[in-house]
């Protein structure tokens, strides 16, 4: 450990602060072995072990109680052991390995709440209904389901079927009164009894002045998140940390807020505790489905940073200028997106002095665009709330593709004026014209994500780099850069496997109880190195046989390459514009006005 640390100091002379924190720098060799062991099991057990099933599994009601039930029996240390041993290989049935738990740094208050829930359950005799939630998903099963999304709607799933239980990650949203609002798989209605049990759990614990946070059971993590009148639940057989799963639930909450605003949701439930929120979310399930798929497959969410498409500085600047010139009163953000990655963001001056655009808000916008791809020929005008910007007010989003019929380049304009559609659409025509004159579309078409081979470091297979060193006065959006996932990570399964490894590394780095600065992790099929400093967060993946020394040299080269390319890889200087000499209302200023209109809208529904 110390020798590596010294190497490290050689590389980054500037990273002095590391020296004072030696204890925190922990090289997890032991954990690597544990994981290598579990990964080797993977090859031998590609299919789930014969699944223990209760013949009388006619009621979904028992699922949750079942998920919770094993906690009654297992000691906290026992379930931590299991989690460690099974490694980050999601849904892969690994037998409890005979290795020791390497350390306890994953353990935190989770076990306490688990015990608490268990106790509550014992009192309520809910465990009598338990049948053991043994179903585990296999990547193969998942892939099978994903192949035909058009033909098979998850809404229609038979929620009593084993396949339903085997989904890697279930997400449920319910109201405080226990009314179902959303379920990722199967219709919420068919699941209302399950939701009822979850609600019972939550209220038990609330009555004891304690909020359920999470429950572990054999192979599953159940995480609860209460936000205002909404309760969100995740039942996951992925090996993600509670913290990560809670972060994902928060994204689901934010996406719901983005459609309805926090203020109106609160008001609705103040008026009527058992209001059926699906009345207002009807048709939006696919937006939430899409979000959850993105959360699983796109590391932007994990890193809380946005991914930009690499562009030469001059092209990015010229695009920003085009956007800066096409403005109209109350326009506050102009965003250009290609291949689901950011090209540039241009912002209204006074608004951005007020606050900055958060990555999570951008993720919600990108997801919205993905969900609206059915309207490639049309121009969309929709109210949207950016929950981190202001959870209580709407923006009005104009969305249109600039390159029909290909529809890869998308323009998103955000206004604070709901009547501004035609004025904003006119901005699009100006942008279109300028882009024709400057032949921007053909230049954008040539822009691509890059290959890791361009870095010129052998053994380096993939990486994710998130810098922290953007000067604050730019009010810059958190960004990260990452090459394409190439062989051996070309198949969906392998991509997911790599992401799961990253998620595992991320959970170690960001552990609340015992954060680590550096992890060198030898797995069977690759070697990973994660490193966080005051300047960046970096995750790298190497071929398995790389030595520590090689990895370190490689990272030095990689950091140099990124430094050299940073103008191309990131949006460096976000451009600003001013739509009016003295803007009458920024989104925040317009808050009361916006709320009035929502009020009216709401009353008319009553």
């Amino acid at each position, binding site marked *: 450990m110390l020798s590596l640390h010294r190497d490290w100091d050689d590389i980054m002379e500037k990273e002095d602060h590391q020296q004072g924190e030696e204890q925190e720098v922990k090289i997890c060799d032991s954990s690597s072995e544990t994981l290598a062991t579990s990964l080797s099991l993977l090859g031998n057990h590609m299919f789930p072990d014969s699944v223990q099933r209760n013949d009388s599994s006619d009621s979904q009601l028992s699922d949750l109680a079942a998920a919770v039930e094993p906690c009654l029996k297992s000691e906290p240390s026992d379930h931590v052991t299991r989690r460690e041993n099974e490694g980050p290989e999601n849904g892969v049935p690994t037998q409890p390995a005979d290795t020791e738990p390497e350390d306890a740094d994953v353990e935190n208050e989770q076990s306490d709440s688990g015990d608490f829930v268990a106790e509550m359950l014992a009192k309520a005799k809910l465990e009598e209904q338990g049948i053991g939630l043994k179903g585990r998903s296999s990547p193969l099963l998942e892939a099978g389901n994903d192949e035909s999304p058009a033909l098979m709607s998850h809404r229609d799933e038979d929620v009593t079927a084993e396949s339903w239980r085997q989904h890697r990650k279930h997400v449920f949203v319910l109201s405080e009164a226990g009314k179902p609002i959303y379920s990722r798989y199967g219709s919420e209605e068919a699941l209302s009894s399950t939701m009822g049990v979850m609600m019972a759990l939550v209220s038990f614990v609330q009555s004891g002045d304690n909020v359920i946070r999470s429950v572990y059971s054999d192979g599953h993590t159940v995480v609860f998140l209460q936000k205002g009148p909404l309760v969100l639940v995740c039942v996951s057989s992925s090996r993600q940390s509670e913290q990560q799963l809670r972060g994902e639930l928060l994204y689901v909450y934010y996406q719901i807020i983005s459609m309805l605003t926090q203020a109106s949701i609160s008001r609705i439930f103040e008026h009527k505790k058992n209001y059926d929120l699906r009345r207002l979310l009807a048709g939006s399930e696919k937006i939430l489905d899409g979000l959850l798929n993105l959360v699983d497959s796109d590391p932007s969410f994990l890193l809380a940073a946005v991914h930009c498409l690499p562009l030469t500085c001059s092209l990015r600047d010229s695009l920003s200028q085009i956007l800066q010139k096409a403005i109209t009163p109350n326009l506050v953000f102009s965003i250009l997106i290609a291949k689901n990655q950011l090209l540039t963001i241009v912002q209204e001056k006074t608004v951005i002095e007020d606050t900055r655009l958060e990555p999570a808000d951008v993720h919600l916008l990108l997801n919205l665009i993905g969900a609206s791809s059915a309207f490639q020929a*049309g121009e969309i005008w929709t109210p949207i709330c950016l929950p981190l910007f202001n959870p209580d007010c709407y923006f009005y989003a104009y969305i249109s593709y600039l390159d029909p019929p290909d529809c890869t380049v998308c323009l998103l304009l955000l206004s604070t004026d709901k009547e501004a559609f035609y004025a904003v659409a006119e901005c699009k025509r100006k942008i279109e014209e300028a882009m024709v004159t400057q032949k921007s579309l053909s230049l954008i078409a040539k822009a691509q994500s890059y290959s890791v081979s361009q870095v010129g470091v052998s053994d380096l297979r993939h990486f994710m780099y998130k810098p922290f060193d953007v000067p604050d006065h730019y009010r810059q959006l958190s960004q990260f850069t990452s090459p394409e996932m190439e062989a051996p990570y070309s198949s969906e399964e392998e991509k997911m496997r790599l992401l799961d490894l990253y998620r595992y590394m991320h959970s170690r780095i960001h552990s609340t109880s015992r954060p680590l600065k550096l992890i060198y992790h030898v797995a069977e099929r690759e070697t990973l190195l994660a490193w966080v400093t005051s300047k960046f967060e970096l995750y790298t993946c190497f071929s398995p046989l790389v030595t520590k020394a090689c990895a370190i040299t490689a990272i030095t080269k990689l950091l140099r390459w990124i430094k050299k390319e940073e103008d191309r890889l990131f949006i460096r200087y976000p451009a600003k514009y001013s739509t009016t000499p003295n803007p009458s209302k920024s989104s925040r200023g317009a808050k009361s006005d916006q709320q009035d209109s929502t009020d009216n809208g709401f009353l008319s529904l009553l």
Partner: protein
Amino acid sequence: MNVGKTSLLHRYMDRTFKDTISTVGGAFFLKQWGPYHISIWDTAGREQFHGLGSMYCRGAAAVILTYDVTSWQSLAELEERFLSLTDTAHHDCIYAIVGNKADLTDTNAQLAQDSDGHSGDSDSLERTDEQVLSACPTPPASPVSLSGLMPHKQVTHEDAVALYGRILRYKGLEETSSLPAEKMCFETSAKTGYNVDTLFETLFDLVLPSILRKRNENQGCTVNLEDSRGGGGSKRSRSGCC
């Protein structure tokens, strides 16, 4: 909601039917019609909640009020919730009442009508059936028949004609000086293409003269796809329960 507005527009514009991705907000389309561009708004429900409905209808030359023939409630909601949104339409706006998903109730609507139209996959047919059967409350006028596999047609042509009459009265228009109900009530299937071209082209032909008359006013022509939030998903929007 879910009555098939977006599907209708897709069928007309793209000549296809797919189990569409959910409508995000309103979508604005331009259709080339001879030398003219006709603008069409596809609305997305929740308009009242957001107070956007009036914007979609502002200055409209035609409004297409769409319901689902298998859902009596979808017709009722057109009147209860959506008619008032048309207040901002142009004063000589014309109204069409369209019963979509006719393929579910009428055998002759099951045949593809467009030359290049072909029906969607049977999966989505089954899916819609299920939704409709489980979702629709028993309407007072036309009870649900559970016989046969086809969902019972809950809204008859006469129901639509009656609604048309009430709309004219609401707008303060004389039936004699307005377009006749027979001409303005359609039954369509976005799935098979049945009557879809007829619907749009009839409307375009009807609005063009009035647009040409107003040409100097420099106003575009807007056709609105106004819907009912009821439809297949009426379980989500029981009226008056709040």
